[in-house]
């Protein structure tokens, strides 16, 4: 009732015209307003096309390109983890590269040193990363905003050094290369690269659906409340500590799974480059922001864009390969300028504008005729 009248006073973007529903107060939480039918149709159409493209892609492209797509998928998973933490819970982390690294080395060590087959190591990687996430999340309760970003930055810088100290790869360097046969396809008819792609894709879809459910439920509302107003959240019974630490753990587990998948895709766990995991952290953050923070599809769009941008800025100018990071940086700046809410935010705004137009038409029609039908709002 109150939601309905609130909507009538102040129509939210993309919301259907206010509908009085006398029998039953709406069950839709106000965070997720019902959408006009045209927007819904557009979403379903886009979804079907995207799904078809994702399923057909590995048969169309070369193995090398499939690998790039698989990289986009694991970056998307890690970015989704970061999105849960930063986008929905407001805790900025530049340390997710470390969780990613823990996942990667967990899988690589179990395979190379202990003879595990690959698939079960994903679970172990997720659990270990989550445990580390709790270990970081608890002290993170005391620090906020910029300071948290800095502490987590330290984590990303520290990780490769810890790896160098404690991991003995071939030749004494912290570099593990599991053999190709560990990742061979479990489905006949699929090549290894296609198998890697589909396994990553399946895990990504599962984790994205999980994230979607998470943020729509009790936990998600607690996360958002803590992000927007900590003190107000506590007054309505949200446990700050529990929410923040749990988000940290889930977020870290996502990054750990991504790291584990990276071992399958790239067949390497590398601890020799001191700033590699810092760069990874940056990649995840970039994917979140250019895709659209606090959206569900944002990290996937951002990750794909990131990989495509990086691939296309490499060697764009003949003989000036040195410039490719500059082009990449310029592209980042351009995206932030043009789409300050990320790609998904921009598209959403566009759809909302279309929806508002059709909603306005519907409202005019409804005013002209009988009282509106309640089903229109769904």
């Amino acid at each position, binding site marked *: 009732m109150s939601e309905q009248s609130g909507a009538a006073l102040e129509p939210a973007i993309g919301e259907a015209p206010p509908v009085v529903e006398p029998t039953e107060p709406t069950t839709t939480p106000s965070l997720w307003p019902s959408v006009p039918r045209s927007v819904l149709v557009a979403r379903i159409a886009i979804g079907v096309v995207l799904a078809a493209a994702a399923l057909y892609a590995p048969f169309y492209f070369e193995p090398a390109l499939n690998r790039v797509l698989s990289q986009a998928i694991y970056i998307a998973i890690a970015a989704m983890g970061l999105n849960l933490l930063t986008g929905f819970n407001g805790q900025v982390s530049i340390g997710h590269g470390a969780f990613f690294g823990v996942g990667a080395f967990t899988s690589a060590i179990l395979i190379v040193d202990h003879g595990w087959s690959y698939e079960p190591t994903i679970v172990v990687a997720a659990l270990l990363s989550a445990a580390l996430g709790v270990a970081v999340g608890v002290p993170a309760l005391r620090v906020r905003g910029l300071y948290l970003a800095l502490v987590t930055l330290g984590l990303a810088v520290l990780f490769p050094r810890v790896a160098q100290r404690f991991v003995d790869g071939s030749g004494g360097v912290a570099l593990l290369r599991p053999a190709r046969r560990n990742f061979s396809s479990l489905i006949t008819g699929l090549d290894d690269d296609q198998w890697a792609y589909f396994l990553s894709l399946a895990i990504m879809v599962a984790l994205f659906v999980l994230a979607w459910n998470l943020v729509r439920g009790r936990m998600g509302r607690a996360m958002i409340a803590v992000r927007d107003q900590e003190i107000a959240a506590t007054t309505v019974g949200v446990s700050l500590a529990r929410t923040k630490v749990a988000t940290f753990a889930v977020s870290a587990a996502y990054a750990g799974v991504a790291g584990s998948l990276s071992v399958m895709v790239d067949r390497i766990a590398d601890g020799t480059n001191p700033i590699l995991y810092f760069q990874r952290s940056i990649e995840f953050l970039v994917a979140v922001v250019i895709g659209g923070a606090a959206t569900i599809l944002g990290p996937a769009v951002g990750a794909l864009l990131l990989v495509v941008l990086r691939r296309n800025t490499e060697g764009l100018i003949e003989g000036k390969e040195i410039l490719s*990071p*500059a082009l990449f940086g310029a592209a980042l700046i351009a995206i932030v300028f043009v789409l300050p809410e990320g790609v998904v935010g921009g598209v959403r705004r566009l759809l909302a504008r279309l929806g508002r137009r059709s909603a306005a038409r519907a409202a005019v029609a409804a005013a002209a005729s009988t009282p509106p039908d309640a089903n229109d709002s769904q």
Partner: protein
Amino acid sequence: MQLFIEQVLNGIGNGVVYGSVALALVLIFRTTGVLNFAQGEMALFSTYISWKLTTTGMPVVGAIAISMAIAFVAGALIERTLIRPVETARSPLNVVIITLGLFLGLNSLVQLVFGTDPQRMPSPFPSGSVSFLGDARIQKDTIGLVVVLLAECVLLWLLLNRTRLGLKLRAVAANPDSARLHGIRAGSMLMLGWAMSAALGALAGSLVAAERTAFDSSLMQTILVYALAAAALGGFDSIWGAIFAGLVVGVADALTIQYVDPLDGIEVVLPLALILVVLVVMPNGLFGKRTVERV
């Protein structure tokens, strides 16, 4: 004991470097409220300009002064053209992405313009070392850095706390809207903050490069991490905190390398652990101001 003093001096030498970059970070944070990840690369670019000028036969001090002036203008331009347009955006992360884009872009521009070979930056200070506490020796370069750093601190502190301009700068950083209502030109103040910070970075970078035997485009990357650590440890808005924390990080690092064998190769654990402990006990850093929040 001799070894201990040498290591402490060694650590102070590095700590001064971290402190001076942390100072530029703190300045930009105090005047604009932005954490600038491109600080190190901006300083790197200016360092190369200083170096290029010295190769034309210009005296080192003059070269550094000109490079600081160029950095001052460039810093203001960056604020006006790249940072300001996105600052109104809903998400503060957008500014972070811009500075990260700058980080990547400037680094590769440096390599393109100045080449990838290591270069030698001449020092503005006399060479050699003086003895200190018995047999330990301290480089004159290091003493020079300490002196310059202290001078910077005093000047900055006077500027921010004892002048009308400093008051305006702080007012804009604290609350741009209220500052505007009081007739302060917030835009100019933000530009000035970036300009000063870029100039400080130019000075720090040039002196750091001069202290080392050679430098290349990776000069600032590890330094930036340590400087960020120092800035966090000192409480992000304190000038003296940045310097003190820079020294703490530098000395702790040097002593760990020397004395704690199990941490061999991962001595960076210690400063980070230090930061974690300090932040958990004192969330605003050692010298940071407590902020009171109204609900």
